[in-house]
């Protein structure tokens, strides 16, 4: 099968791969590029564990074909901390006990980041709505919601 070249930036770094037609971005990131922070929970766009940010928008990488991402800027949870310092969302998830099994966590953080990028001072309802596409089967939603609200407050304090 003819391979398709694909080129994009991942967490700021240039990446280029040859992939099979039909390869999802999730599989390209995990199996080809080696970024396993997006998780495959359902491969049908229902659990949100594979969430990544493409050109500023929240996307399900299991339903996105890698070949459609040429030239895109892709962000994943593995790229959020800088020089060993956790991103405020990562810090807030840690402090708020917002992880249990951890499988949904990278996707949750992606969804929360897109929310805060667009809405720096969200209401609780905004947070609930923003996380509504992400399933936490451990059902630890309340600490997750609190973590996002805490991160938003710490961001606005830093900005002030």
């Amino acid at each position, binding site marked *: 099968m003819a391979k398709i070249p694909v080129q994009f930036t991942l967490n700021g770094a240039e990446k280029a791969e040859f992939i099979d037609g039909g390869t999802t971005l999730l599989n390209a990131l995990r199996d080809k590029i080696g970024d396993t922070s997006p*998780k*495959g929970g359902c491969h049908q766009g229902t659990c949100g564990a594979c969430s990544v940010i493409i050109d500023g928008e929240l996307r399900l990488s299991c339903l996105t074909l890698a070949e459609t991402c040429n030239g895109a800027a892709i962000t994943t949870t593995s790229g959020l901390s800088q020089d060993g310092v956790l991103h405020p969302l990562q810090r807030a998830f840690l402090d708020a006990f917002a992880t249990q099994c951890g499988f949904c966590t990278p996707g949750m953080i992606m969804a929360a980041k897109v929310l805060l990028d667009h809405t720096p001072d969200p209401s609780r309802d905004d947070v609930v709505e923003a996380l509504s596409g992400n399933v936490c089967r451990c059902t630890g939603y309340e600490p997750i919601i609190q973590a996002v609200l805490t991160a938003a407050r710490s961001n606005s304090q830093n900005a002030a």
Partner: protein
Amino acid sequence: MELRKSYFADQRKDDLHEIGQPRPRSDSPGHVTGKTAYFADRNFPAMLHLKMVRSPHHHARIRSIDISEAEMHPGVVKILTAKDVPHNVYTILILIQIGPEDETVLADGKVRWKGEAVVAVLAETERAAHEAAAKVKVDYEVLPAVFDMEEALKPGAPVVNEYHGRNYYLYDSGECRKVRFGDVEAGFAGADHVLEQTYQSSPIEHAPTETTGCIVAPEGNDRFTCYTNTQAMFFTLDNASIILQMPGNRLHFVGGTVGGGFGGKVDVIVEPIAILGAKLTGRPVSFIYSREEEMQISSPRAAEKVVIKDGVMKDGRIVARKVTGYTDAGAYSRHSPYGAQKGAGHYPGPYTIPNVWIDTYCVYTNRTPSSAMRGFGVTIGDFALEVQMDKLARLIGMDPLEFRFINAYRDGDMKAHRQPTEGAALIECMQEASRAANWPVAEKFMAMSSYAKGA
């Protein structure tokens, strides 16, 4: 968080300085940075993908299996059937002498539930494995199936599992686990009221976000490393050793990080066949359930039926309790004989009742085999018991919480299965619940104690 030490102040002299203090989880930094290594985060060159051909029938005889067309499919490397599995008939709890071996790794001559594994296809890509699996031809003769526990126990019902020869698990105590304490019929005869109710539950799927699976890498020296999300590492290793007839020192299991389990990952299902595939091909093998398989194929919590008959006095004392519990194991035992047995010990509940009779049956039907899930064997029973307690309280016109105080077990009371009660704290929990829920009870109940004599 408030830690109230006053309840057992004269019993506990230990220093509880850690309890009540938040401590960071050791795994959280890995979770929030995406660095935690789940089994599927391993990738090996030349890794094969395993897809299972599954039974479309609830109960059928296999007349023939034709893999010739599937073998020719581009990308297919190996196709496994029952004859390839060294010790194909197994049961998980054989490790603790709970037999007989009653389940096939790959179906041999018969399928007993819809979704049962029949043929394993190993291919270069997931897609090739899927396509080839669709080309495996299995000729089935469909047999009558039974889905209801009471139907399964009737004479003349189709026999689900020939390794048992009957549709229930035969305990050393007979057709069910039994608890006999006092004289239950005399208790009913002397009771002011008798209430019999039936409670039923459906199977419940754990639905972990990470599906069941493993990745096996041959190490080149006839040893195999199995990266797995099993919740039962040593059970899985030992059962894999039995199924593969391979000494355990050739199997290296790596696990510990589970993307949600809830009891759904304690069966030994994916690892042995993936290791076999790696052994026979010399290549790494990935066997990961699809979401559909996770929901439909992995063991659920058993469906249960619980019949509770209680004799109660107007003053609130329960004087007799008779329970018949049925656990739907599905087609194979897995952990269900243990679950049903646990129920037998548990059914009196945390109450002291002088006359108790309990029978719990582990029943085979042509449903998906059930197994462990969060307190299996007792969770559904607790639902039934506590609903029954509310109904009994209503029957005699008593506050449901006060009714529980009257019957609560206390240290020194003999339980129906003849273990003396030790370390009971039900009364103290209910006192705290009474305050927290603003559900007041009479002062004499607030003065009770689980362990202080005379209180």
